[in-house]
């Protein structure tokens, strides 16, 4: 088989990873989704997701810049205080702690 024929049969696979969704829930919880997309010859081929959550007031060390920016915008002192109150209320649970 000629080299040119072989070359034509080679696929071009590329993988990109990016935070593609930042969802802010009503109580300030931030849901982050990271998408790893694989393209074959420039066309979409497959995608995988990874998710994590950040709660109001949580340490943002190591988070992507755009996630930090959204969290800082959403997490006002009032939001953090309200979330902490919610957590404290939930800690009582439906039963006895």
């Amino acid at each position, binding site marked *: 088989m000629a080299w040119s024929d072989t070359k034509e049969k080679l696929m071009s696979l590329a993988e990109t990873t990016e935070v*593609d*969704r930042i969802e802010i*829930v*009503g*109580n300030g*919880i931030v*849901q982050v*989704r990271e*998408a790893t997309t694989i393209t*074959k010859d420039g*066309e*979409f*081929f*497959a*995608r*995988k*997701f*990874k*998710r*994590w*959550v950040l*709660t109001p007031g949580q340490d943002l060390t190591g988070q992507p810049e755009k996630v930090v920016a959204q969290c800082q915008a959403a997490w006002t002192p009032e939001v953090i205080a309200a979330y902490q109150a*919610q*957590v404290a209320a*939930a*800690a009582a*649970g*439906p*039963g*006895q*702690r």
Partner: protein
Amino acid sequence: MTDKAVSALTSLTGANTATGDLLYIVDISEAAAADRSKKITAEELQNYVKKFPATIGVGGATPAASGAGISFPATASASSDANTLDDYEEGDCSSSIAIAGTTSAGSATYSSKSARYVKIGAMVTVYGYLSWSGHTGTGFMEISGLPFASNAQVALHPTAAIGYPHNISLTAGNVVTAFGAPGASTISLYQYPTGGGANSAVPMDASGDIMFSITYSI
């Protein structure tokens, strides 16, 4: 439609032979759509079905390049219709899931820390395995980092299953149970006496293993 064609359709789709709904044929066949009165043979029907794409995209989604199924948009387009399935997503949430203390979350060394999720419409199922040691958290024990906050509007606590509580200290004669709080992304661990009685929270344990699953609405 001929009886033979109806029979073929039934074998392919499980459709009711009594109705032989021609609209179904029109939907799946561009060729037949031009003439609804056209009689098609079983062979023609088989050929139409073979032309179905393995994957279809809804809402502008690019159909998956592998397997067979329905591809939803990467960003869900939520429907207010209670009869509409508007989203499907599966993925990994291992980096987020952790054992945490309620007073001080703390940190630990994990020999296993893995979890995955599947979201179908408004329902999310998360399942995982955590094995930890040297935890510095204090207070009561919880599993933190669910990939979606649960529905805060529903005054129902989503219940979780702890299928493998290993080396977790409990009060003598108690068994472990767990639930999530509305609007939160955590699972609280509780224990209750085998003979019945009041439950109590499970104190933080510096080491242990837990396999869990939880299904909840968002």
